[in-house]
């Protein structure tokens, strides 16, 4: 149940970070050209992908902590 509870909290936290912190990012507030827009979007994609990678890594570490300690694998 600990892993499920942790996953639940991480889903809340991850979705908050993506939609409330990453999505509103605008590193070129005064510019509206295509390159600025593209770079802005690219940054958001990279940050979101990094967050997803961190989420997956945390879940794998939790899995390893739970099972490998008990099974001595």
């Amino acid at each position, binding site marked *: *149940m600990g892993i*499920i509870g942790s996953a*639940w909290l991480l889903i809340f936290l991850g*979705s*908050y970070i993506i*939609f409330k912190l990453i999505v509103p990012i605008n590193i070129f507030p005064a510019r509206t050209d295509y390159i600025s827009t593209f770079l802005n979007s690219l940054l958001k994609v990279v940050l979101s992908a990094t967050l997803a990678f961190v989420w*997956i890594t945390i*879940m794998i570490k939790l*899995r390893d902590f739970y099972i490998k300690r*008990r099974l001595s694998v």
Partner: protein
Amino acid sequence: MAILYDLVVLTSIVFALTFSLTYLLTLALVKTLPKRGSVVEDYHKPGKPKVAWPGGPAILSSILIAELILYFVYGDLRILSIALVTMIAGIIGLIDDRWRLSNGIIKPILLILASLPILLLDVYVPRPTFPIFGSVRLHYVYPILVLVAIPIVSNATNMIDVLNGALSGFMIISTLPLVFALALRADYPIMMATIPLIASSLAFYIFHRYPSKIFPGDSGSLALGAMFCVIAIVGRVEIVAIISILPAILNSFFILSSVKRLVEHRSIKTRPTILLQNGQLVASKESSAPITLVRMILADGPLSEREVVLNIFKLSAFSAFLAIITAFLTWGI
């Protein structure tokens, strides 16, 4: 008050119809399948007894009949999409039951076809609602998520179908928060369309519980998973559904991350659990064995199959509880 009364009456009729159909069709399959040699071994019992398989057609037929009746009553295209998605996923499962798709990547790719009715009928709203901070616009990403969601959830339910009664019992518990969330949203047509999923799973559970008289096969597990997913999408209760089905998603995530590739579960050589002579199951200590939910449950010591399934139900109930909290946190946003 009159609306509530109509709702209760219709719910009762739909539930009774689906339950009865599934029960009678499954009973017929339990009697006829072994005579036709359509049986598989129950690996988790001494002597590996033969069990009738697949019971999916009974589940699929009764759900489709109920959904088509509900489509006739409500005229809601979303209900038609539920029927179509479930039917396509069930047919893919039947193909796998009959011809054994050995390559692990083929089934997920075929299951993308099951997602198409949602997109073609345009019954989705690309604004999922998250707890606390509300809905977000995903106009470009959402259709892609729909395409991958059905294969992911269907495969997740397929992978949890490993022990007697696990899948059918799990689906009953996991679907209850969806009904609750849809009632909170006052989306009564889709709430009604969810009833056949519970009724059919409950009727099938009577035969599937320990000791199983019939296994659902991929036709059953893929259909149930796909139906769960499409209800979540068209009913706009995506986040509640994800939380509710977390044990199955985590199970498939752990398997994939330990095996490190998409593989048909029948082709995994090292089994995650070992059957003891006294009938109990124990977790394998082989490092090459996949890490599964069952193996994690058994990590604390040997248990009987019935006890392992009970633990799966407890995890499912906990997820359902968290899903109901999530439904409250998204209510009215």
